[in-house]
C-alpha cells in the first residue's frame, strides 16, 4: 500500500519548493535571453514552458496538495509561470522585430539600376504647341475650326482679297493642283478655314484655325515646304483693334510668359485693314542684350501678322461690313517651337527622328 493516506506535506514536494521555483524561473529566463533566433527560442520554450518543464510539473502537482496548501502553492506557481510567459513573449517579440529588420535588409535591391521594361512613345512637339495654343483660346471661349489642305483657289485667295494678279498666286510660291486650271491649290495659309467659317457659322464668331500649310520653299534650316500655322478670327459688332491687341497680349503671355510687353507696327496684308505686325519683348534678354541670339539684339521678337478684317473679305463672305467688324491674326507654330524650346533647325521637325520628339515628352 502506498502512503496515500499519509498526510501530505507540500514542503516535501521539491518542485513546489519556493527556491526550486525561483531556480526554474531563473533558468527559463536565462535560456530565453540566450536564444538568438526564433528557432532556439522555440527550443527554450519547449524546455521551460512545455508539458515536461519543471513549472508545468509543479503546476500539475498542485492538484495533489491538501486544500489548505493549494492556494498558497497555486499562487506561487502561477506567479512563476507568469514571469516566464512574459519573458518569453518579450523575447519572441524582440526576435521577430530583429528578423523582420533583417529580412528587409536582405531584400534590398539597387533601385538606381536603369529600368525600361516598356518603351514610352512621345507626341510631336509641334502638335503639343498647337494643342496648347488651341487650349489658350478655348479657355477664352473661342472654338477651333479646321478645313481641307487641298483647297480651292477661291477660298485660298480671292475670298481673302488676293486677286488674280496678286504675287502670291504665282507658281513660285504656291503648289497648284494639276491641271492648273482646276482651281485647286495646297492651301498657303489656314485663312481659307476662316472663310469657310464665315460662310458656314453664325455670328458672332471667335475661332482659331491651326493646321498644315504649304509653300514652294525648299527644305533648309529655316524653311520647309510644309509647315504649321495658327490663325485667329473674331467677328462681332463693335470689335476694335484694341480687342485685337488685348487678345494677342493674352496669347503672348500665356505662351511665353507673364508681363511680356507687346508692340504693334503698321504693316500690310490684303485681307486686313488696318494691318499690323506684332512683336513682343524678348523673353530671354528683355531687350537688355545687344548680342542676344534669340531676338538678334533688337529686344523684340517678331511674332506674326494681324489686323482688322478687310471689308472686301466680309463682302466675299456675305457679312455686312457696316454692321460687323472683326480682327484676324496668324502665327507660325514652328516659330513658337523654335523660340520656346531653342530648336535651331527646321529639318529636325520634319525628319521623324524619334529622338527629336522623345525629348519633349507628352506635355510642352
Amino acid at each position, binding site marked *: 500500500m502506498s502512503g496515500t493516506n499519509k498526510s501530505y506535506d507540500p514542503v516535501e514536494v521539491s518542485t513546489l519548493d519556493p527556491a526550486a521555483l525561483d531556480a526554474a524561473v531563473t533558468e527559463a529566463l536565462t535560456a530565453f535571453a540566450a536564444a538568438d533566433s526564433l528557432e532556439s527560442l522555440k527550443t527554450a520554450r519547449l524546455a521551460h514552458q512545455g508539458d515536461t518543464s519543471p513549472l508545468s510539473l509543479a503546476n500539475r502537482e498542485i492538484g495533489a496538495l491538501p486544500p489548505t496548501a493549494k492556494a498558497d502553492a497555486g499562487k506561487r506557481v502561477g506567479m512563476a509561470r507568469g514571469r516566464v510567459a512574459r519573458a518569453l513573449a518579450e523575447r519572441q517579440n524582440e526576435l521577430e522585430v530583429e528578423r523582420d529588420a533583417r529580412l528587409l535588409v536582405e531584400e534590398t535591391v539597387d533601385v538606381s*539600376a*536603369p529600368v*525600361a521594361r*516598356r*518603351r*514610352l*512613345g*512621345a*507626341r510631336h512637339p509641334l502638335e503639343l504647341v498647337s494643342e496648347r495654343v488651341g487650349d489658350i483660346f*478655348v479657355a*477664352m*471661349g473661342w*472654338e*477651333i475650326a*479646321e478645313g*481641307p489642305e*487641298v483647297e*480651292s*483657289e477661291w477660298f485660298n485667295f*480671292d475670298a481673302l482679297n488676293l486677286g488674280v494678279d496678286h*504675287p502670291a498666286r504665282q507658281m513660285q510660291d504656291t*503648289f497648284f*493642283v494639276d*491641271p492648273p486650271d*482646276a*482651281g485647286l491649290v495646297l492651301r498657303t495659309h489656314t485663312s481659307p478655314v476662316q472663310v469657310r467659317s464665315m460662310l458656314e457659322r453664325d455670328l458672332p464668331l471667335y475661332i482659331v484655325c491651326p493646321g498644315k500649310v504649304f509653300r*514652294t520653299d*525648299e527644305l533648309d534650316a529655316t524653311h520647309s515646304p*510644309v509647315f504649321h500655322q495658327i490663325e485667329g478670327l*473674331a467677328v*462681332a459688332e*463693335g*470689335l*476694335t*483693334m*484694341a*480687342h485685337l*491687341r488685348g487678345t494677342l*497680349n*493674352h496669347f503672348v503671355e500665356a505662351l511665353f510668359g507673364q508681363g511680356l510687353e507687346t508692340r504693334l*507696327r*503698321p*504693316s*500690310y496684308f490684303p485681307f486686313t*485693314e488696318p494691318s*499690323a505686325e506684332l512683336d513682343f519683348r524678348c523673353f530671354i534678354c528683355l531687350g537688355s542684350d545687344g548680342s542676344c541670339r534669340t531676338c538678334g539684339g533688337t529686344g523684340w521678337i517678331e511674332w506674326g501678322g494681324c489686323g*482688322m478684317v*478687310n471689308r472686301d473679305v466680309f*463682302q466675299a463672305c456675305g457679312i455686312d461690313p457696316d454692321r460687323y*467688324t472683326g480682327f484676324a491674326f496668324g502665327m507660325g507654330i514652328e516659330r513658337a517651337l523654335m523660340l520656346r524650346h531653342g530648336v535651331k533647325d527646321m529639318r529636325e*521637325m*520634319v*525628319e*521623324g*527622328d*524619334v*529622338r527629336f*520628339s*522623345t525629348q519633349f515628352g*507628352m506635355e510642352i
Partner: protein
Amino acid sequence: MRAPVSWLGEYVEGAPVATGREVAASLVRMGLEEEDLHGGDITGPLVVGRVLEFVEEIQKNGKPIRWCQVDVGQNGQRVTEGTPQGIICGATNFAVDDLVVVVLPGAVLPGGFAISARKTYGHVSNGMICSAAELGIGSVGSDDSNAADGIVVLQSFLGEQDAAKLTPGDDAIELLGLADEVVEVTVTPDRGYCFSMRGIAREYAHATGGTFRDPAAMASAAANTSGYAVQLADEAPLNGRMGCDRYVARVVRGVNASAVSPPWMQKRLTQMGMRPISLAVDVTNYVMLALGQPLHAFDVSTLRGAIVVRRAQAGEKLRTLDNVERTLFSEDLLITDGGTAVLAIAGVMGGATSEVGASTTDVLVEAAHFDPTSVARSSRRHKLTTEASKRFERGVDPDITALAAEMAVNLLLEFGGGAADEGVTDVDHRPARARIDLDPSLPARLIGLPYSSEQVIESLREIGCDVLEPTWSGAGSGSDSASVSAPVSKALSVLPPSWRPDLRNGPDFAEEVVRLRGYDQIPSVLPQASSGRGLTHGQRVRRVLANTLAEQGFVEVLTYPFVSAQSHDDLGLPAADPRRTTVRIANPLSEQAPLMRTSVLSTMVEALRRNVSRGQRDAAIFELGLVTRPDGEPRVAPIPGTLERPDNATLGQIMAAVPPQPRRVAFVMTGDTDPAGWWGPGRPADWTDVVGAARALASALAVELVVTADDHAPWHPGRCARLELADGTLVGHAGELHPKVVTSLGLPSRTCAAELDVDVITAASNVRVQARELSTYPVAQSDVALVVDEQVGAADLESAVRQGAGEMLESVSLMDIYRGGQVGSGRKSLAYRLVFRAPERTLTTKEVNGLRDRAIAAAAAAVGAVQR
C-alpha cells in the same frame, strides 16, 4: 529699299540728328520694317596720304607690288612718328604725288577688318592704301571693270580743285562721307511711293515731326507740240485701264559721251546698292531713287520714228538689256519705234538696240506712267523683276512724271553739257482721282481710341490728303432750330494724294490715322467671346488617339504628304486599287514626289528607314493626318473673283471640287518592342503589337472592334487583320507588312504596321456610353478548352461562346492556343477562362456548369467546336 541717313536729312528739315538705328526705329513705327543697316562701320585712323615715292618689286608669280613711302602728316602718324609711312600696295593705278586714302594701324574697315602693322613681302607695312571696294564706296572710274579694286586717287575721285585743298593727315572718314549710315527697309506692296527717297523722307518727317522738303517741288518745262512724237495706242486695256496714261519725252542733245557722273551721285548710287555706269544711266537711276519715277534713256540716233506705245503682236521678239532674246506675249505693253521696231517692254526693261552707250550724245528721256497690272503681268510672264517693274507694279505717282523728266534733263545738262530740245512732249490721259467719303468717327470705331474729327482731318492732311469738311446747312435756313447746325452730310470728303493709290476706303484712312498717331497708343482690351463649346468630339478623339499611341510606345512624326507613283507599286497596290487615284501637284518641289498621299503609312516609311539608318533599330512611330482620296472624276473649282459672295450654286461647285480628305492614323514599328536589358531579353515587335495597339485605341474610346483575317495590300496575306465596327464599317487594317513590300521599301524584315480611319472611329465613338450596374456578388470561374479547325477565327469562336454563355458571362479570356498531336493536324485548341457573375445573387456551381455547357453547345453549332 535703302535710305542713306545723310540723304534723308536733305529732304527732312528739323528732324533731330539720329543714328542709323534710330532712323530705322522711326521708320519701323511708320510701317517700314527694318531689313539691315549698312555703312558707318569704319573707325579710324583713315587719312589722306601723299605718295612720296615707291619701288616696284616683281613677285615670284610675276605680279608687281609697290613698296611706298607715304606722307600721312603728323596727326596720322602712329607707328613711325615723324617719318613717311612705309606701306606695301598691290595695286598700280597711282603715281608719285597722288593723294590717296590710307588706313593706319588701329583702324577697322567695313566687315570688321582690323588693320595692324604687319610684315609682308619683306617689309613692315604700316597700314594700307585703300581701294574703293575696301572703303565700300563703289568704283572709281567707268571704263575699268576692275575699277573697284583700284586705289582711290583723290585728285580724280574728288576732282583736282577739291583735292588741292587737302593736306596729308586730313581725316578721310568725314571727307568721303564714310560715317554715313544707310538704313535698309522692307516696303510693303501698298506703299509703292516708299521705293523713293521722296517717299521714305515723307514717312521720316511724319515719324520725327520734321518738315518734309519735297524734292519734286520744282517747276517743269511746259508741254508743247514740238516735242518728240509720242502716240499712246493701247487697243486692249486691261480691266478697262489704259496700259499707259501719261508719257513725257524730253531730248537732250550734245551730251559729252565720256562724261561721268559726279562723285556725290556715284556715292549715293553705291550706297543704294547700284553700280555707277555712265552719266545717262546714272542720272536716270538717281532720279528714280530720289523721286520713285523709273526713267528710260534712249539713244536718239537709234530712233527712226515716233514713239508708239501699244500691245505686242503674236511672234514679236525683243532682245532685252540683259541680253536675253524674249518672245513677247500679246498682253505685253511695248514701247516701239514708229510702231514697228520694239524698243522696250513698258515699265519692265528696255531693248539692247536703243540703249544709251559709250558714243551716245543725244538722249531721249522717257518718263511714263504705266498701269500696275499690265507691268506686273509682263514682269511675271517674263520672270523679270527690275527696279522699274517693282515700282510700276506698286503704283508710281502719276503727277510726278514731268518733274522727274525735268530733274533728269537738268542733271544731264549740268554734268554732261549739251542742250535740251525746246520741244516737250507730255501725252497726258490721267484719269481724274475720285474723292472718297469718310465718316470721321470710323477710325475711332475701328481702332478703339477716341479720335476726334479734328485729329482725323489733321492726320489725313498730314499725309497729303485734300480733306473737305462736312457741309453745314446755312444758319437760319431751317425752321427747326435743332437742325440749324446739323450737317447736311456727316462725311468728310477726302481726295487721297496722287502717290497713294492704296487709299480706297474708310479702313484705309483709319490705318493712316492710327499710323500717324501711333500704333503704340492702341489700348489692350480683352474681348468677351461668345460662349464656346470647347473642343469638338473629333478634336478630343484625336488627342485620345495620339496620347494612347504615345503611351503604347509610338513616337509621333509629321511627314510630308507627297509621294511618287512608284510608292503605290512598292506598296503592292493592285492596279485598280482606289488608293492609286489621287491629286497631282502641277509644280512639285521634286518630280520624285508629285502626288498627294492616299495613305498616311506611305509617307511614314521614309521616316522609319531614317530612324533605322541612324542606329535606332527599335523604332515605333505614328502619324495622324489627312490623305487625299478623290473619286477620279475631273472637277473644276470656279473662281468667281473677289469682293462679292458667290451664289450658293457656285459655292456648292467650289466645295464639291475640293477632293475628300479623310483623316487617318497610321503606326509602324520594327525591332524590339519591349527593350532588352539587365532584366532579361527584349521582345521583337510582331503583328500582335499593332493589332493590340489598334484594339487599345478602340478601347480608349469605348468602341467595339471586330477583328477578322483579311488579305489587303500592303500587308502579309496571312498576317493581316481587318478592323471593323460591330456594324461592319471598315475601320482599317493592321498586321505584318508583306515581305515583298518590306523588301521594296527597304524596311527591316517583319516590320508591322496599321492604318485606321479616324473619321470612322470619331463617328463610332460619338455615343454616350450607358453605365452597367456593378454586381458585388462573387464571381464564378469556369475553364474550357475548345478544339476547332485551323481556319476558324478566334473572333468567331469567341463570339459564339459569348452568345451561348449569355447575360451572366462577365468576361472571357483566351488563355492558351495549343496545336499538336493531342488535337490532330489542322486543328487547334483554344483554352478560355469564362467568368460569370449574376447581378443580385451568388451563382451555384450547377448554374455555372449549365451556362458553360450552353457556351460549348453554341460554339459547336457555330464553328464545329469540340470540347477537349
